[in-house]
């Protein structure tokens, strides 16, 4: 019997998204992702000073603003015809790298882990750790109070197959708390060169504002060392522990099987080599990335704009009355194919193109440790593993970049805003491929378009009715209990989406099931 599940809102992600799931015989057979929020950022950029885009586009996302600052700066570098000095290039990498570490750690511990970890185990903690004792006392007092909101914000939650191992659960609670502090320090590290975080102020066309002094180098490096220690000895082992406890999730959440990476972290002046290379993996083959092959379908998106436009000619005309449209997200496609973006795409492309030896070795060793084929990367656990391994690669490279800075050397090249120009900038946010496109007329922004990672991953159907990557990953997911679709939450969160979600379980005649719990 087929039925439809509704989770609205799905929490522990960023932003507003809703998903409808049709479940038949305990398996998802159809899914719809619906973006539920529109702000009109691209429209409000029209007519402004092009440099203002650097700040305004950061407000697209408070979790990864540095990535938008980077995309916007690369776009303006091109449009203004300016090249950052060496220090400027390195500082941008250090800011972006710090943000990757913050974002990946936050995602695993504070967004995704509660799908696996049984936080209630803390009530039976008998150890000597003062911090954990404090949490136990708090949780116990909350439970004893008998109020409906006891142990908020962690309870209530779905019933489900949480980790049974008490020690593992207790360690996870301890690491949840430690990760709050570590991610905060990653932000401090970013702030040394970024001026503040979220919404750094120093990344600009032509480089960065903050200058280089030895004390800043040390302040960055010393925090980084602590974060690296956490990645190596806590984060990666925890991902491995979750993988060992849930081997089925190497098979669940496969998705579309195609990957796209724009590449990220400039190792040379613009247009040169990157730490993680650009490339696409389409129908089982690695192909070079060509920016002309990106287009956006809008058949099921709430816009009246033309479909299949290249972002450089993109339009964003909202249309609330459009029939069949179910999402505020457009449906970006590459070479007319559905593709997934994110840490998995970056690490797999780096591995398959043999362009980053460290990434390749980490991927190979991890697959060997689980005796798993490369295809296992296309899964819930594959995405978590890729994210954790990438954090290690990026942190280790940041430790080298920071030592390449030269105190006293310039960080910024002065620019002039031309009367007319255009440009684009491609980078990778923690969540995947990110591109900005600009047209300048009369020294003002005439058109600005952003194609953000979650638009790729959480896209609705396209003009050919093909499901987006996250929709495809949900199809085939086993749902043990339609009233507690914990498995769907795990699949959705493995993408680290940047939009608030809702998941619906409906019967063929679209009758909603009675209330159910959502993670």
């Amino acid at each position, binding site marked *: 019997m087929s039925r439809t599940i509704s989770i609205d809102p799905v929490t522990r992600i960023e932003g507003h998204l809703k998903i409808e799931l049709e479940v038949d015989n305990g398996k998802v057979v159809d899914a719809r992702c619906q973006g539920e929020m529109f702000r009109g950022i691209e429209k409000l950029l029209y007519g402004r000073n092009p440099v203002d885009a650097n700040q305004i586009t950061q407000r697209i996302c408070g979790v990864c603003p540095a990535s938008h600052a980077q995309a916007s700066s690369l776009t303006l570098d091109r449009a203004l015809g300016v090249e950052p000095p060496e220090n400027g290039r390195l500082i941008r990498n250090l800011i972006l790298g710090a943000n990757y570490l913050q974002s990946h750690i936050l995602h695993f511990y504070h967004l995704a882990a509660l799908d696996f970890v049984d936080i209630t185990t803390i009530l039976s903690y008998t150890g000597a750790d003062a911090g954990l004792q404090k949490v136990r006392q708090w949780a116990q007092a909350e439970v004893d109070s008998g109020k409906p909101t006891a142990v908020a914000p962690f309870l209530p939650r779905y019933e489900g197959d949480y980790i049974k191992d008490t020690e593992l659960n207790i360690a996870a609670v301890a690491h949840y708390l430690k990760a709050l502090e570590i991610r905060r320090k990653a932000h401090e590290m970013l702030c040394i060169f970024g001026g503040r975080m979220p919404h750094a102020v120093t990344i600009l066309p032509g480089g960065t504002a903050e200058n280089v002094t030895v004390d800043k180098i040390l302040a960055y490096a010393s925090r980084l060392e602590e974060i690296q220690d956490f990645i190596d000895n806590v984060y990666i082992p925890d991902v491995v522990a979750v993988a060992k406890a849930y081997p089925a999730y190497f098979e669940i959440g496969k998705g579309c099987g195609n990957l796209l990476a724009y590449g990220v972290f400039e190792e040379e002046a613009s247009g040169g080599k990157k730490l993680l290379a650009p490339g696409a993996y389409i129908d089982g083959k690695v192909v070079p990335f060509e920016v002309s092959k990106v287009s956006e379908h809008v058949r099921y998106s709430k816009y009246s704009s033309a479909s299949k436009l290249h972002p450089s000619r993109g339009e964003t005309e909202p249309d609330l009355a459009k029939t069949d449209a179910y999402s505020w997200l457009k449906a970006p496609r590459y070479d007319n194919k559905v593709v997934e973006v994110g840490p998995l795409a970056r690490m797999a492309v780096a591995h398959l193109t043999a362009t980053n030896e460290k990434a390749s070795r980490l991927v190979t060793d991890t697959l060997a440790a689980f005796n798993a084929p490369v295809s296992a990367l296309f899964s819930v656990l594959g995405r978590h593993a890729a994210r954790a391994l990438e954090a290690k690669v990026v942190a280790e490279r940041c430790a080298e970049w920071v030592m390449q800075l030269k105190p006293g050397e310039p960080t910024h090249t002065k620019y002039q805003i031309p009367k007319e120009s255009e440009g684009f900038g491609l980078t990778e946010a923690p969540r995947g491929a990110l591109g900005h496109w600009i047209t300048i007329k009369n020294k003002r922004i005439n058109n600005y378009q952003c194609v953000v990672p979650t638009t790729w991953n959480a896209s609705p159907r396209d003009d050919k009715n093909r499901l987006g990557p996250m929709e495809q990953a949900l199809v085939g997911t086993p749902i043990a209990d339609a009233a507690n679709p914990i498995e769907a939450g795990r699949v959705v969160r493995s993408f680290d989406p940047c939009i*608030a979600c809702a998941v619906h379980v409906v019967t063929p005649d679209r009758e909603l099931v009675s209330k159910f719990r959502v993670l």
Partner: protein
Amino acid sequence: MSLSRREFLELLGCTASVAMLPGFLRAGGIPEPIKIALAEQMKTDPLPVIWLQGQSCAGCSVSTLNSVHPDIAEVITETISLQFHPNVMGAAGDFALDVLNRAINEQKGQFVLVVEGSIPTGDGSAYCQMGEHDHKPITAEQWVLQLGNAAKAVLAVGTCAAFGGIPAARPNVTNAKPVSELLPEATLINIPGCPSHPDWVIGTVAHVILYGLPELDEHKRPKMFFGKVVHEQCERRADFENGIPAEDFGGQGCLYDLGCKGPETHCDVCIRGWNNKVNWCIRSGSPCIGCTEPDFPDFGGYGLYTKLPREAARGIEWSGPYAPQRTIKVETT
């Protein structure tokens, strides 16, 4: 013989209830009976907080996570009962909505509503939705009206919630509004900033718990954090006074010519610093972008990186080419 926690603390001469207090309450200056009363109240009933997101980027939530003293875990377990927060809560879907509906129906006047992000209104209210009722999407506008009218107090956190911010910037296609326009009768505090500083958010919550409403300015901002403009306390003020402009971003000198909004931006980040005092905007060689002001990011069409003409730069006394000319009178006898 084993002692209970309470017995053990009494043995040490502290009342159990006071020992349960969060650190900021254990500090001096609060009379003992009040401390005990507060501790008793907080033990049984920490302040319920419901944190709603409208047209937000989650930046103010992420910024609040950066609180150092007290750290965020301490805030959640000792100061408030965070009943609803989209980014951290375990529950989702109807389970999550139950929390909001319970607050509206059963907790009237007992919780604080925090709103992050602006609210699209009128015909545009479909631009932000969460949850459904009778198969119809519920808009952020409906949630804010219902929760706001049931709340004890409302905190509009971040410039989008306080003044409309980025979504309400021209041409404001979604008819985005600040929370105060939806809830003109509510006891409301604006805590702007793009993002808000964690000290401002946690500090305002603590002030409400300990002493009631803080003193507010004309824009409903707590004067304790937003009482002075950046220019008044800027570490580059001497460069302004001496007529030394910065040649480029990152350089030494006053950043006014590069578009700095310090002269009209009310906040104390110049003293407080960002991210555990590591740095702040002007120290990093970047002009202030005026992110705590109602005009952000339009500034009358000048925007963020365009120098304000003198007549538009409020708060500066102009008399000379760059800095005020001063005449020092020397009295001779």
